[in-house]
């Protein structure tokens, strides 16, 4: 069969991917630079195409709680937002993590703090990878670097969400969301029937039938010892995820003296910078974490045994660099270079930053 190729925005690709995945529900609220997600859904009218529910909520808070409600019924539910709206979703995400529900969330990051700007940024790393809301929990975080990955990560994300009963975040930015690229589109999958949902999610609130006990979806347990036990169970789950689900791309690392560490848009910029540096004879490699939680700490720790230093490139004042430092554990110098507030660094300034780093500046 011939490949189906389309020219799409990242924001459109993710919506099309959700419909084709056979997702059951999307709840959204407009915010720049991700409003095309809900606009594309509304235009496509997926209730006609697959029976998928799409609803514009009254706020990001309501949208994430709608995801809670649908996810608790065993549905493949998703929402999307951009940084200020993603902050509003932290309450719901904490409850979703606490109730161990699967769902998919997209954050098309823009510069902050506050209302900040509508331009692209990577300044939500801490919020995304360290929990974000209250309590001890983690999201599984996927960082796409292309429109194709925006598309592909929907299936990977939902599969991980259901495998671990854990919210999954696609951490994108205003560039990946807005730019258009060629995307290879997968076949339309049929949505699960209610019987299949019940079989896959026996814990879901699908109506208490005579053959089982009632299902309760809650994050509340007032007995401290049980709540502690539950927290320990979550830690175990996160450790399993750390063990099994790390995704990372290492480019030109085999012979590298120095490596960039960068994800998403920054990793694409680094690809160009790396080429420029290699043409000048510098042996420079790139580590591109695809999962930000779990973080590819072991891979970076391994490289720390032989490379001379790590330079992280982020569109932030330095957030992921802390995870690189933890992985390197003082063995090699680790530095950060970034532009913020919606400014995107040029490959040339990244080249200069690496040259300065290699000189020990």
């Amino acid at each position, binding site marked *: 069969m011939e490949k189906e190729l389309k020219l799409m925005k990242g924001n459109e690709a993710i919506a099309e991917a959700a419909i084709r995945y056979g997702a*059951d*529900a999307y*709840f959204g609220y407009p915010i720049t630079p991700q409003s095309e997600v809900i606009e594309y859904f509304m235009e496509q009218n997926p209730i006609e195409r697959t029976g998928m*529910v799409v*609803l514009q*909520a*009254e*706020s990001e*808070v*309501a*949208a994430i*709680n*709608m*995801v*809670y*409600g*649908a996810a*608790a*019924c065993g*549905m493949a*539910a998703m929402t999307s937002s951009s940084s200020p709206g993603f902050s509003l979703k932290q*309450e*719901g995400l904490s*409850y979703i993590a606490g*109730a161990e529900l699967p769902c998919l969330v997209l954050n098309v990051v823009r510069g902050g703090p506050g209302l900040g700007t509508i331009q692209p940024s990577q300044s939500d790393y801490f919020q995304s990878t360290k929990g974000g809301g209250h309590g001890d929990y983690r999201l599984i975080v996927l960082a796409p670097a292309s429109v194709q990955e925006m598309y592909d990560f929907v299936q990977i994300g939902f599969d991980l969400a259901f495998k671990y009963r854990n919210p999954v975040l696609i951490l994108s930015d205003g560039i990946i969301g807005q730019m258009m690229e060629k995307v290879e589109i997968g076949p339309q999958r049929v949505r699960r029937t*209610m019987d299949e949902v019940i079989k896959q999610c026996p814990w879901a*609130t*699908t*109506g*208490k*039938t*005579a053959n089982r006990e*009632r*299902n*309760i*979806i*809650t*994050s*509340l347990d007032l007995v401290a010892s049980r709540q502690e036990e539950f927290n320990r169970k979550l830690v175990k789950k996160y450790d399993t995820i750390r063990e099994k689900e790390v995704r990372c791309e290492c480019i030109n690392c085999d012979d590298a003296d120095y490596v960039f560490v960068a994800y998403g848009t920054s990793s694409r910029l680094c690809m160009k910078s790396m080429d420029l540096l290699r043409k000048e004879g510098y042996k420079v490699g790139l580590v591109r974490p695809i999962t930000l939680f779990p973080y590819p700490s072991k891979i970076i720790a391994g490289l720390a045994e032989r490379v001379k230093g790590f330079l992280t490139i982020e569109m932030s004042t330095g957030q992921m660099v802390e995870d690189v430092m933890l992985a390197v554990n003082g063995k090699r110098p680790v530095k950060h270079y970034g532009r913020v507030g919606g400014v995107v660094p040029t490959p040339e300034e990244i080249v200069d930053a690496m040259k300065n780093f290699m000189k020990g500046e």
Partner: protein
Amino acid sequence: MAELTINDIIKEENLVYKKTKVMTDNVMHYCPGCGHGTTHRLVAEVIEELGIQDKTIGVTPVGCSVLMYNYLDIDMQEAAHGRAPAIATAIKRVMPDKFVFTYQGDGDLAAIGTAETIHSCNRGENITIIFVNNGIYGMTGGQMAPTTLSGMKAVTCPRGRDVNTMGYPLHITELIAQLPNVRFVTRQSVHTPANVRKAKAAIRRAFENQKDGKGGLSFVEIVSNCNSNWKMTAVDANKWMEENTFKEYPLGDIKIDWEIQEGKISLRNRKLDY
């Protein structure tokens, strides 16, 4: 004929009333005399009578009734504070053949969850909202609620609610009754047998409105007590409620099948001598 003993009467074949099987045997955590218990039971009885135990999904709030899922033998979800109508919206949208209800207090529904309440009502989600209004935050220890009566004391208005700085008691029920997609709005109480019967009929109607295909949202307010935080006995609290709360929140049907009942909603002007 020999005189009947109590044991002659208390026999299975003579049973005329007992707790519904849709209630679990867990002892409820509510204070003695709290209207939550009665309201829970009415919801459970309606579910049993309609035969919809396997088709009902309930959403519990944050507040005293947060643990309602321990007492009803149905599938339930526990919501974040105020978000129950958003959650119920999603449940109904993804499973339209199910009966979906939220159970919320006045702080949950009329303060932190105002947006979710108004918008689920405005969309006319085909769900049932049970709104228990006791004019106070019970679980957190008796703070002022949006529904607290003017002049009424609470721990965050120890000199009484001053309407000029704290606002008037919020009539959210009358507000949402004016939304076109809202089908049924009523205000009831559960403190006497007659009121319990009326409240149950209202809850039943609110659930039946989910099965005739006509859609619309049904909203049942139960004006209730909080004797612990009102610092009264249960009996005194019910009496106080009749004498004070009912004046602010008169009982009765406000809207039936999309028709606002005559004289039920009037503009409320600010009175300086309130």
